[in-house]
């Protein structure tokens, strides 16, 4: 019944994350400040520059999916810090002595981070509406967009756990995390279409899971052009599967 044990641990990890969130909501609010500034300040200013081809979409609307995803993915990319902290304390040792498999800890944690990301996005979403961003009023599209957001955040959390299992200390982890963040954001279609990039950056953007997530969320929430959405979902699912496997395998290294 190892599978049941693992499933239970996954749910327990999600519940843990929710309970933490319930006790301290400050983080969710403070983390919403930066994306709101991106929309309100950067978006407003840049919308006067009419050189960015957005297919007739107002620039603030155009960058909203990217900013939404960026704010949740940043949280996921640093999720590994929690794991590093739990390694420094005895929590991880203790979880590894529990009956669940090791992959349950990794996947449970990654899913928990995905759930946290959805909560984060739910705070920014109404602010974007207040800023005048026009979302497509189709509940199924909105739901699909949130599922995409959940999946890609979970994947990046797993990536972060993978990095944590190699880096092991806070300082080294922070270094890698910081180095990942900016290229991740700028080498994607979050702020401008890929076609504007130099070829080298374009090839990175094509490998960047964030590009597919932004494309899907933009199609579902803003432009209504959903032709690429199935491909986007497939790309993100492939990313999730690979990174879950890699992180689970590498996780045993963390306590050695």
């Amino acid at each position, binding site marked *: 019944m190892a599978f049941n044990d693992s499933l239970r641990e996954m749910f327990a990890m999600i*519940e843990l994350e929710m309970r*933490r969130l319930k006790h301290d909501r400050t983080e969710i609010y403070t983390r919403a400040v930066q994306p709101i500034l991106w929309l309100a300040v950067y978006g407003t200013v840049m919308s006067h520059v009419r050189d960015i081809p957005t297919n007739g979409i107002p620039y603030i609307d155009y960058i909203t999916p990217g900013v939404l995803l960026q704010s949740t993915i940043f949280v996921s990319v640093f999720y590994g810090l929690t794991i590093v902290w739990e390694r*420094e304390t*005895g929590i991880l040792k203790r979880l590894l002595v529990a009956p669940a498999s090791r992959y349950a800890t990794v996947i449970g944690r990654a899913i928990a981070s995905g759930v946290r990301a959805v909560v984060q996005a739910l705070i920014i979403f109404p602010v974007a509406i207040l800023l005048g961003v026009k979302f497509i009023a189709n509940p199924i599209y909105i739901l699909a967009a949130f599922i995409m957001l959940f999946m890609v955040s979970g994947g990046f959390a797993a990536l972060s756990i993978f990095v944590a299992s190699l880096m092991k200390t806070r300082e080294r982890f922070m270094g890698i995390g910081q180095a990942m963040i900016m290229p991740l954001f700028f080498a994607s279609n979050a702020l401008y279409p890929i076609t504007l990039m130099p070829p080298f950056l374009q090839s990175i953007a094509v490998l960047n899971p964030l590009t597919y997530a932004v494309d899907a969320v933009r199609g579902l929430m803003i432009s209504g052009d959903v032709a690429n959405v199935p491909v986007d979902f497939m790309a993100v699912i492939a990313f999730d599967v690979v990174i879950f496997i890699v992180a689970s395998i590498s996780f045993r290294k963390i306590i050695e």
Partner: protein
Amino acid sequence: MASAIDIRQLTKVYDGKVNALDGVDLTVKAASIFALLGPNGSGKTTLMRILTTQIHPTMGLARAFRYDVDKDDDKVRKIIGYVPQEMSVWTDITGFENLLIYAKIYGVSSLQRKKAIWDALQNMGLEDVANGPVKKYSGGMIRRLEIACALLIKPKILFLDEPTLGLDPSARKAVWENLRSFKKEYGTTVFFNTHYMDEADLYSDEVAIINQGKIVKTGTASELKRSLHGEIISFCLANNGTDSMHPSTAPLRQDLNILTKIRALNFVNDATVHDSVMDVAVENGEIAMPLIIDVLRSEGISLQWIRSTRPTLDDVFLKYAGMRHMQDQSGYHYGI
């Protein structure tokens, strides 16, 4: 009596060169409290990590109630509780929630969950603070909460790595009193690592000393103490009428002479002198003391004071796990 833990020739080599464990043999009786003592780096944490299925042994066999900790690790995990040395609860949620998460991880059914949690809280005397955030707990309360998490599933073996490290004496006492009453109620085997000799002495049924990856001594605390020597009687020799502070050769020769005489006495195991204090190792101080005093008197030596010390577990530990260190520091040479 059945054994809870059986270890045969257990070896752990790190990176192909460091022998953390070097052929450990050990048996722990079921429903006993077992203390593993050892200096830093002696292998005691490695041993506990193998027994709790965290790392694999290089060679040898270890069983917890007939389950091989290496091959049947998933079965072993269901019957053991473990409290690592470092803090191991989430501090940003309440004590109750910590137990709730562990209850779910361990699959305590929803019907029994509440009762199991309150039982564990009660066992550790935490009912009153259960709904407070853990970050407001004291060190002793956190440790008791960690043990409560491990007790949730009523484990057959409870592993504690330095359970009272950094706690004040009253918190230590509280931890142990709660543990003992739990053990009495459920017959749990308790296996713990410690640096605190008094704790091993007071609370354990059996003790093993590990040094450089090998078990060097096992037995009950009193057996180990008896194995050293009966008692040490220290005599402070007065400077006996001679005016000089410490004349060069004569007293030395005199000392040697006295030592030989004292060593020759019945009931005396050994005698040494340093800084005008003579330590005599004896089996039974009450009988030996008058005889020694007679010898000293006959040599015309008067005494400033006499002190008798029975061996403590510290002495046992120092002998088996830190002899060289002790000699360097104090110059004692118990001639055993």
